[in-house]
């Protein structure tokens, strides 16, 4: 009984990773299953958000404080994942902006942003 409770406690402690997996699957599903181009970009954003959570969760060291050297503290949280995620967020923003710009041009050229309609117009 205590063994089962311990296992339950451990998996509940990993709730961040459960959320990461859920976001990965949700994002990928939207990218694959939806045919509206803007919905695909939203799905891509969700997929990229899961990566941020994956990096930052192990960065908080148990018992660690803000990573600025001050007296009286021995354990500091890891600042490197935060720096990596700042970069990844900027890359995600740039990709989203570029994707939206391409969608605006596609709407002007084809008159629609549903992928099925676009492929029916030119690639039949």
């Amino acid at each position: 009984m205590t063994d089962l409770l311990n296992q339950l406690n451990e998996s509940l402690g990993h709730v961040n990773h459960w959320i990461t997996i859920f976001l990965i699957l949700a994002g990928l599903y939207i990218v694959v299953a939806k045919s509206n181009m803007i919905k695909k970009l939203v799905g891509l954003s969700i997929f990229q958000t899961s990566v941020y959570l994956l990096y930052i969760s192990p960065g908080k060291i148990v018992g660690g404080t803000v990573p600025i050297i001050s007296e009286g503290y021995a354990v500091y949280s890891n600042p490197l994942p935060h720096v990596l995620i700042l970069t990844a967020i900027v890359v995600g923003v740039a990709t989203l902006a570029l994707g939206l710009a391409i969608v605006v041009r596609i709407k002007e050229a084809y008159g629609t942003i549903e992928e099925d309609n676009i492929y029916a117009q030119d690639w039949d």
Partner: protein
Amino acid sequence: MFEQYPVIVVMAPLLAAALCAVVRNERWCWILALSVSFTSLVGALSMLGYIDGEAGFISYALGGWIPPYGIEYRVDTLAVYILILVSFLATGVLFYGRQSVRAEIPENLQGWYYCMYLLCLCGLMGIAITGDAFNAFVFMEISSLSMYVLIALGRDRKALAAAYQYLIMGTVGATMYVIGVGLLYTVTGTLNLVDMGERLNPIMDTRAALAGMAFIIVGLSLKLALFPMHLWLPNAYAFAPSVTTAFLSATATKVSIYLLLRYLYSVFGFDFVANHSPVPAVMLVLSLLAIFVGSFTAIFQENVKRMLAYSSVAQIGYITLGIALANGAGLVGGLVHVFNHALMKGALFMLVGGIAFQIGTVRIEDMAGIGRKMPLTMLGFVTGALCMLGVPGTVGFVGKWYLAVGAIQNGWWWLVALIMISSLLVLVYMGRVVEIAYFRERPRGAVELSEPPKAMIVTSWVFILACIYFGIDTSFTLDTAESAVEILLAPKP
């Protein structure tokens, strides 16, 4: 000054791209882009001379922080091989492409085109030179984002849909790569590739390390268009401007192949990958599928650029076949084919760009009878076709020979037969274009034709002659590939 070469090779294109964005005059941007690409080429060649002569590698600490605490630029034989390839192609395509850019791209966007071209060059050189996992992701996205823009500037409106599809698939691939790096960082605590390799030695068969390896391989396979993740490649190459296709077809996937090789052999280790993981078996199946499905689909294409793009999918299958063979000869064959395929495809796409410049279309049916009107171009195309076929004395032969030797070393005679059969398929789809160009009459009322501008013809022929030269005198490519493979196969410290 010499120690700063690793950073000059990457930062000069970046600075030049920012300058191009300020000065948007087409002529000055072209001159700036050409001189910076040439500077990168000279830098890469001098690093090759230094590595061959003295040390085995150059290690440059960016920002003065010593590795493994800081980002390290690590240049060994394999990296400098890719650096020379990318900068050589960039310079050649720029020299070739000025007329083509002026014909195909709207006037107010031509300066921005060169800016994106330089950013793409910076990103590709950065991936090849960096020794840090996350830095590779940053450069990968720099090059990918500029590639999406370069493709979307095509004349046809299908270029926009192709760029969008490439954006979605490319970003999914890059994000999977980042997930893999995150998992490996969590278990090793470092991002430096050499250090990561050392720290992974005892824990290679834990679940986290295996999951990280799987994510990285899938993410990079999306970027290098391994079957079945190649769906973005035919549309992207077919509808992009001619200069873009000539540059991207030769460099974009090759740099991702370099990164995959770096991970498989320097981080995970040859022993683990070849003997304890399913990677060789899976790669074998996927490579064979890539070769045959790619070649078959190429036979039925109406658009000559799309046909050459499917042919690229097949040739990437040959390169990953070298990884699947998991022995020295196979890897040498794959690496040599990286360089040779870049030369061949670059030359072929340049010739097709010249044809498109003259007749305005790339449909194979519209190319009837141009053999007599554009003799130099079509002769170059025929020579390129012979190189792709793998005729001895051309570059296409060297890679396939070493792949066959590797297959025989594994005892897989059926693979040698398959390689030969696939070369026959090349004959079918290339021969179709040659037959239509030479043996049919020009339709009445067609556009009056002449050869493309001199810069285009001269550069395409330089690359075609390089195909033949490097096929006869294989010392540069083979020696470099063999020393690179020696480094890759060495056990990790």
